[in-house]
């Protein structure tokens, strides 16, 4: 353990996404509370909720941008916030080319002048039960649509828009992961082609989700029913909670059901994606940068007890 940052701010929402910034600060989004920047000095809410110029109406995903922080506010709108006099102000808005079908953004990455969005993008559907989907969309810096990657066609409606999708900056590659399976798709960011798809080795403790979980269901009470299902999946199975890349290693955090710990961090070597180690922990991984691991103490504030106090642990690994 290198450091522990404790702050008097009460956190109750689920951790959405998180990233480690260039200056070593952590940005994490908590559902219901918005984006929070946490450093050794303070934990501050980056912007409040609203329709004002320096506010966010909704929040789907966040990533680092050369001019500050980029927030996907609406499915087709990215707001870039920069720091002015200590506070964050909106400096630029990028409007993405719209698609007429359903769009749910889960993760965003700005990489070499292009926006990579991961999520659930319905491309077309017909009344004959043909659902064409794409899971990664690429836009240029001005928001013009370039290409869709990782396509799938299904013949029954599903609820995969409720899933989390992860995009990881792997220096000269981009890794795409879906929360429900240990499979990595390697994307070449220059020519926008899929290099390979690798099934990662699952540890013995891995508890896969039921295959029919994301099949479309009709609930008697839609809000309560779907919320209960989501909570069951998030706490009952080994979904991928966090994905990061550091020093030639892909790191994934999954939930496990051991007496010793609630989470497991898996290490995979770049290239071959062979397992390179694992650690058990009770803390939720927020990200990794230059050998430093940033954990949110005691797990996810929504699901774990004693996790409502904002405490970030900064650790390094020996060996």
């Amino acid at each position, binding site marked *: 353990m290198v450091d522990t940052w404790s702050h008097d701010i009460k956190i109750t929402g689920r951790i959405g996404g998180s990233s480690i910034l260039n200056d070593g600060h952590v940005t994490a989004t908590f559902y219901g509370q918005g984006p929070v920047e946490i450093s050794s000095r303070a934990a501050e809410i980056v912007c409040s909720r609203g*329709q004002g*110029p320096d506010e966010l109406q909704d929040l789907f995903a966040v990533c680092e941008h050369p001019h500050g922080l980029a927030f996907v506010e609406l499915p087709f709108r990215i707001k870039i916030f920069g720091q002015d006099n200590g506070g964050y102000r909106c400096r630029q808005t990028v409007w993405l080319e719209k698609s007429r079908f359903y769009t749910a953004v889960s993760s965003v990455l700005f990489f070499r002048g292009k926006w990579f969005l991961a999520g659930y993008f319905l491309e077309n559907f017909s009344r004959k039960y043909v659902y064409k989907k794409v899971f990664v969309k690429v836009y240029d810096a001005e928001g013009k649509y370039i290409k869709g990657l990782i396509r799938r066609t299904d013949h029954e409606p599903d609820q995969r828009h409720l899933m989390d999708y992860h995009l990881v900056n792997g220096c000269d590659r981009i890794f795409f992961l879906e929360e429900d399976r240990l499979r990595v798709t390697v994307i070449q960011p220059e020519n926008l082609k899929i290099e390979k798809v690798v099934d990662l080795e699952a540890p013995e403790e891995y508890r896969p989700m039921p295959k029919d979980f994301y099949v479309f269901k009709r609930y008697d009470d839609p809000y309560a029913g779907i919320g209960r299902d989501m909570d069951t999946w998030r706490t009952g199975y080994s979904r991928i909670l966090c994905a990061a890349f550091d020093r030639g290693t892909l790191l994934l955090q999954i939930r496990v059901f051991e007496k010793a710990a609630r989470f497991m961090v898996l290490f995979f070597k770049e290239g071959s994606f062979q397992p390179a180690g694992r650690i058990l922990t009770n803390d939720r991984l927020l990200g990794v940068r230059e050998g430093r691991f940033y954990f949110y103490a005691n797990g996810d504030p929504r699901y774990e007890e004693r996790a409502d106090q904002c405490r970030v642990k900064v650790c390094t690994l020996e060996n």
Partner: protein
Amino acid sequence: MKRLYKVVAAFLAGALVTVLVVRLGGHAYSDLGVAIQNAREMILSDLDGNRFCFLDLVSSGSETCCLFFGLNQCYSCIFRGMEDLKLLQQQEKNCFAVAVHDNTKDVRGWLTHESFHPVFVMSRHAFLRHVSCRLLPVIVHMEKSRVTHCAYPAP
């Protein structure tokens, strides 16, 4: 028997009063879940900031169709609503859309890749004050300043 006549007469009188209030009053109601109240006080602005009264945009002769939508709502539904309005425009009906949003600049940005016009802006506060409906987006059909029916566009 006399008592029954009295009850029936009272019922008819009540119905007559209700009809007169709805017809001659300052607001129009729809049975389909949309109500526009005090339409004379409803102020919209175009994308350049010019202000208009809602009733001035509603044609006095032919049918008027108006799509109310919010920027963060289901885009597939908004898209379908705008396509429906385009078809109605081809039938030479008076059609326009109203974005319920506080910032005109945002609406201008949102409309970057849209081909439908005209689009006006209405603040959220004004919308909540004057319009009641189940959900957005909604297409409201009006004749002579009166709501005749509404439709909730679906993808």
